[in-house]
């Protein structure tokens, strides 16, 4: 089970690196927003799996709060890009 955990951490952290690279060199503003959206989804899965890795039940609430609230930020930036807020 330990080997699977480290494989998962390696893949997710390399994926976060690609998303940060897209935030750095995206030519337009929606590109950067796509990178941000990918990073929030990866982070939610990482938080749930770290809750399993530390074996605590209470830690999963953070992932629940993050999954609800990251939606508001992305939709507000998208509405700003569209023109009316």
């Amino acid at each position, binding site marked *: 089970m330990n080997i699977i955990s480290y494989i998962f951490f390696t893949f997710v952290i390399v*994926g976060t690196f690609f998303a940060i690279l897209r935030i750095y060199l995206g030519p337009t503003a929606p590109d950067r927003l796509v990178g941000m959206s990918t990073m929030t989804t990866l982070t939610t899965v990482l938080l749930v799996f770290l809750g399993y890795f530390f074996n605590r039940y209470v830690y*999963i609430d953070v992932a*629940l709060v993050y999954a609800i609230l990251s939606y508001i930020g992305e*939709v507000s930036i998208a509405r700003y890009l569209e023109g009316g807020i």
Partner: protein
Amino acid sequence: MILTIIGAILILISSAFLFLGAFGIYRLPDVYNRLQAATKSTTLGAFIGIIGVGFLKPEWFLKTLIIAGFLFLTNPVSSHAIGRASCLRGVKPYSGTVVNKTQEFEECRSTKKE
């Protein structure tokens, strides 16, 4: 024991999907292609991974199902908002993905006449 094996296999599949989605973010040439890689592959990977944690610990299954349901509802809505905003802003699609059959037909006919 069988639940542990199922959960481990689900988590390996989910890590492959998440890595391929993030690699598509880096590799594809356009906003719309990147958005497709981001929303489809990453949503499926997140869903499978969170359900896999629920299989590994069967007493946590209800809360993981709630988190997966929230991701499954909110992620397509936000990606649709991003696509609509970039379309209304006038971001041009990548020239390899645009299909214009009449222009191709005219070019073909004009070359055949000569």
